[in-house]
C-alpha cells in the first residue's frame, strides 16, 4: 500500500513515520491557478490526508501555459478551476480526500474552512486575500506559507504564528501594486520555483520537522539570475495588529474589505478598493497601453476593453466592470489589472 510512497519514505527526514504523519494532515489551499495547480499536485502525489481547494475562477485558454492541472478540454468545458483540479488530482491519487470549493475566499469563508486544518497554502493572486488569510492563520494559530510570482520573479516565506514575523509585519499595509501576471506576464519556471520552496516547507511542517524550517525570506529572478535569502528575525513587530500583543485582525473586518456591488439594473459591478488613495491614471494608462490594451479616458477616468468586459477605472481607485453581474468575476478582473 505504501509502495507508491517508497521514494519519499527512503528520504530520511520523512521516513515511514513522516509518511504516516502526512496521511493524518489536512491542508487548506487558497487558489487553484498556477501556484495552486502545482502545490496541489505535489501534496496530492505526496499523500497528504486531506486537501481542500478554494477557487473562484474557471479555466481559460490563457491559463494553460502555466497551470499544470488543466487541459484543452477543461477550457472547452469552462470548468471551475476547483472542479477541474479535483478531477485531475483524483486520477493521480485516489487515496487523498479532496474537497473542492468554488467560491471567493472571503474572511467569512476562511473562518469556516479553517477548522481542523494543519496548514494553509497561499496560492492566491492578490494581497487583500493574503492579508485576510494571514489574520485567520494568527487567529487560529495555523502555519501558512506565502508564495507569489510575476514575470521571472518570485518569492516565498514561511509564517508560523507565535514564532515568525507575519505578512503584516513585513508589508505594514497593502502595497500599491503595479505588476501582475495580467500586466507584465509570467513564465512557468517561476511558478515551479516558488512552489518548490512552498512545498518543501509544507512537507517539513506536515511531518513536523520543525528544526528544518527555512527562517529566511527567499526571493529570486530566474531570467536575471538573482537569488536572495533575507534573514527575518528583526522583522517581527510587537505592535503588529495581526500578530502583535494587541491584535485586532484588521483584514477580517468589513471596513478593510474591497467592496463590490452589482449596480441596480445594469450589467455592471462596481468595485471600491479597501484602502483610500489615488491612482496615478497617467502611469496606469501608459502601462496598459504598453501591453496592448486600447486605453481611452479623460483626466478623471480610464476605460479599456477586455474580452467581453469594459472596465472603467476612476482616480479614487473605484472601477466599474461592465458586462457582468458576477461579483467574484468582477473582483477577479479588478485584481488582475490593479493587483
Amino acid at each position, binding site marked *: 500500500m505504501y509502495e507508491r510512497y517508497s521514494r519519499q519514505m527512503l528520504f530520511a527526514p520523512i521516513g515511514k513515520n513522516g509518511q504516516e504523519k502526512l496521511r493524518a494532515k489536512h491542508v487548506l489551499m487558497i*487558489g487553484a*491557478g*498556477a*501556484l*495552486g495547480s502545482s502545490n496541489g499536485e505535489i501534496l496530492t502525489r505526496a499523500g497528504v490526508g486531506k486537501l481542500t481547494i478554494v477557487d473562484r475562477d474557471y479555466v481559460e485558454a490563457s491559463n494553460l501555459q502555466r497551470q499544470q492541472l488543466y487541459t484543452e478540454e477543461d477550457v472547452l468545458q469552462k470548468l471551475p478551476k476547483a472542479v477541474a483540479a479535483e478531477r485531475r488530482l483524483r486520477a493521480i491519487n485516489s487515496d487523498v480526500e479532496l474537497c473542492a470549493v468554488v467560491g471567493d475566499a472571503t474572511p467569512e469563508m476562511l473562518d469556516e474552512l479553517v477548522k481542523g486544518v494543519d496548514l494553509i497554502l*497561499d*496560492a*492566491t*493572486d*492578490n*494581497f487583500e486575500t*493574503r492579508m485576510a488569510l494571514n489574520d485567520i492563520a494568527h487567529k487560529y494559530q495555523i502555519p501558512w506559507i506565502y*508564495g*507569489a*510570482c*510575476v*514575470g521571472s*520573479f*518570485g*518569492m516565498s516565506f514561511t509564517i508560523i504564528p507565535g514564532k515568525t*514575523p507575519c505578512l503584516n509585519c*513585513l*508589508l505594514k499595509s497593502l*502595497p*500599491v*501594486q*503595479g*505588476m*501582475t*501576471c495580467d500586466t*507584465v506576464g*509570467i513564465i512557468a519556471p517561476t511558478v515551479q520555483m516558488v512552489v518548490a520552496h512552498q512545498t518543501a516547507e509544507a512537507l517539513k511542517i506536515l511531518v513536523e520537522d520543525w528544526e528544518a524550517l527555512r527562517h529566511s*525570506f527567499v*526571493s529570486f*529572478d530566474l531570467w*536575471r539570475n*538573482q537569488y*536572495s*535569502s*533575507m*534573514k*527575518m*528575525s*528583526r*522583522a517581527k513587530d510587537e505592535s503588529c495588529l495581526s500578530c502583535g500583543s494587541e491584535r485586532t485582525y484588521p483584514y477580517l473586518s468589513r471596513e478593510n474589505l474591497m467592496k463590490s456591488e452589482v449596480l441596480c439594473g445594469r450589467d455592471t459591478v462596481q468595485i471600491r478598493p479597501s484602502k483610500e488613495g489615488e491612482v496615478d491614471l497617467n*502611469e496606469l494608462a501608459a502601462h496598459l497601453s504598453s501591453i496592448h490594451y486600447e486605453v481611452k479616458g479623460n483626466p478623471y477616468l480610464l476605460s479599456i476593453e477586455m474580452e467581453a468586459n469594459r472596465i472603467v477605472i476612476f482616480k479614487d481607485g473605484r472601477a466599474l466592470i461592465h458586462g457582468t453581474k458576477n461579483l467574484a468575476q468582477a473582483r477577479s478582473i479588478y485584481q488582475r489589472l490593479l*493587483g
Partner: protein
Amino acid sequence: MNKILFFAHLKDEVGEENIRIDVAGRTVAEVKELLAAEYNLQKLDSAMTAINEEFASNEDVIEAGDEVAFIPPVSGG
C-alpha cells in the same frame, strides 16, 4: 561606501544589478527617496529592504560598508 542591489524590475529600471554610493548615516526611507528621484524608480517606497541580508525597516540607519538590497513584494499566483 555602500553597495546597493536592485531586484526584479528595479534592476532593469536602474540599468544595473548594483551600484556603489555612499549613504552611510542615512535612513532606509531617505535612501529610497534619493534613489527613486535619481533613477526615476516607481514604487520603490513599497519595496522591502535588506541590510547585509537582514530585513530592515524604513527607520533603520545605514552604516559605512553596509550592503543594501531592495526587493519589491509581488502578489501574482
